[in-house]
């Protein structure tokens, strides 16, 4: 039985379980499963046992630091970790060993998490899935050979399979919410500025967000509380008073807008995904919220501006490597970055101008609404080898609009499709309403019952 973070925290606090036992369980699961799932770039066994022992000592003397103390955890391998290689899943950084922890890595360590290792990502959070990198792509625990989505692929696979109870992700166009959707877990892209990006390898500075991924929205709320906070080293980091962290909310009087055209016309989703969204509407409505339809600019408009901004900024980040050592990138990332290199300054500025228009139109259309609802992904996970190289420019995704806006957006599992793989919905809030979004996710998960089902991993044991 794999506990949630909240359950494990209660048991640790009650001295019913030791952090060392939890870490050993986690290591044993990693040893059994990761040769098939490839969620880890590096397992930090010694560090994990040392962290767990320290947490156990605090447990024994009644000095636990909070609900994350002693929790098995992993960092996406673009989060810099002192003295532990941080590779971005790329040959470019195979030997990169940071001298210090990133801001959120430090905050989570201070909260007591037990570092189990560094987790797979699409190369530099943009390439992938790729088979020409120093490490294989992570696989979906719900189906061997199936795509996790990306780029926080290893975190999603490790959480879904219970190898860790939580982990970090980053989200520039959907890299937390996409993998959370395909792997049947929860993941939140927080409000832009809530979590520092200092010490996280950048992809696109005006769209990058750091955030947590876990089995439940409640667990994401616990992790986000530890990750959030002002950091002068990130120029986008906000210095704001602590928000209301409660997940118990009154839903009567709340207005939820369903962005039906996103998932019915702009990029039609699978029947199972649609059923999950409708079930979520019924749950929120049953709790007392008023649910209405809302119309935003088309997903295509958001996607065009978002893709251009993301790709141009990403090329700027990697320009020197693209000129000097392009063959150290995998083919997928080399291609995507190359397209970014063909975007002119005028193109980029037009995209930022359009972004401003889209933000204004969205704010007008959603005035008076507390939450929005749409899909997080079009359907169930495809097989890895069926993902087209240029998938990212073929159809708009459901996630990039909220990177453009900077609004908090959460993926919650809403059931399973024809292949028995997870499907999901996306719940979006207004800026700084992250915990309202998480409260909605928590309420939906309690009502829909899908958190009771874990992937059956027996078929993946053989490696």
């Amino acid at each position, binding site marked *: 039985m794999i506990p949630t973070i909240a359950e494990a925290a209660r048991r640790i606090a009650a001295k019913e379980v030791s952090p060392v036992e939890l870490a050993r369980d986690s290591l044993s699961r990693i040893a059994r499963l990761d040769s098939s799932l490839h969620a880890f770039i590096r397992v930090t066994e010694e560090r994990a046992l040392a962290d767990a022992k320290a947490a156990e000592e605090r447990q024994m003397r009644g000095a636990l630091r909070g609900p994350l103390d002693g929790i098995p955890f992993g960092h996406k391998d673009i989060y810099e970790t002192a003295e532990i290689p941080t590779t971005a899943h790329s040959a470019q950084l195979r030997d990169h060993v940071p001298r210090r922890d990133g801001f959120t890595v430090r905050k989570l360590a201070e909260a007591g998490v037990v570092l189990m290792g560094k987790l797979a990502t699409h190369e530099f959070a943009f390439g992938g899935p790729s088979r020409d990198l120093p490490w294989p792509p992570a696989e979906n625990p719900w189906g061997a050979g199936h795509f996790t989505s990306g780029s926080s692929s290893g975190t999603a696979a490790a959480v879904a399979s219970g190898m860790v109870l939580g982990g970090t992700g980053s989200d520039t166009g959907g890299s937390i919410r996409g993998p959370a959707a395909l792997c049947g877990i929860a993941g939140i892209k927080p409000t832009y500025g809530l979590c520092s990006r200092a010490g996280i390898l950048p992809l696109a500075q005006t769209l990058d967000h750091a955030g947590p991924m876990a089995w439940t929205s409640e667990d994401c709320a616990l992790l986000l509380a530890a990750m959030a906070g002002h950091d002068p080293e990130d120029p986008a980091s906000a210095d704001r008073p602590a928000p209301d962290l409660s997940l118990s909310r009154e839903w009567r009087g709340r207005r939820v807008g369903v962005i039906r055209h996103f998932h019915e016309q702009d990029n039609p989703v699978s029947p199972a995904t649609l059923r999950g969204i409708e079930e979520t509407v019924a749950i929120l409505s049953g709790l007392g919220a008023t649910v209405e339809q809302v119309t935003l600019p*088309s997903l*295509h408009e958001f996607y*065009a501006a978002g893709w251009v901004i993301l790709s141009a900024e990403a090329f700027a980040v990697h320009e020197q490597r693209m000129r000097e050592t*392009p063959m150290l990138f995998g083919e997928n990332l080399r*291609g995507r970055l190359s*397209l970014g*290199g063909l975007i002119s300054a005028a193109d980029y500025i*037009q995209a930022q101008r359009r972004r*401003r228009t889209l933000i204004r139109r969205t704010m007008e259309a959603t005035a008076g609404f507390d939450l929005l609802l749409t899909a997080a992904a079009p359907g169930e996970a495809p097989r890895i080898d069926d993902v087209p190289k240029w998938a990212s*420019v073929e159809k708009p995704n459901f996630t990039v609009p909220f990177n453009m806006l900077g609004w908090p957006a959460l993926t919650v599992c809403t059931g399973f499709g024809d292949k028995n793989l997870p499907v999901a919905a996306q719940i979006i809030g207004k800026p700084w309403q992250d915990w309202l979004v998480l409260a909605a996710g928590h309420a939906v998960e309690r009502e829909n019952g899908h958190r009771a089902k874990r992937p059956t991993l027996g078929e993946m044991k053989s490696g």
Partner: protein
Amino acid sequence: MLRSMPDPIPPAEFAALLARAGIALPEAEVEDLRRAHPRLLAMLAMLREPPPAAEEEPAFTFAAGDEA
């Protein structure tokens, strides 16, 4: 919607674009990229249609005059 996709630009023109960006790729990847490039062109066209209204312009202010 992404409207009609433009045709790929001729190989010589595409090679010039890549050279200007300082990008050198294996030949097969150049051709693959050239065939994907119209999807980018379609997105770029969307950004300019309709042209942004004047009121959407960010306010650029320059205060150096105060010191002059």
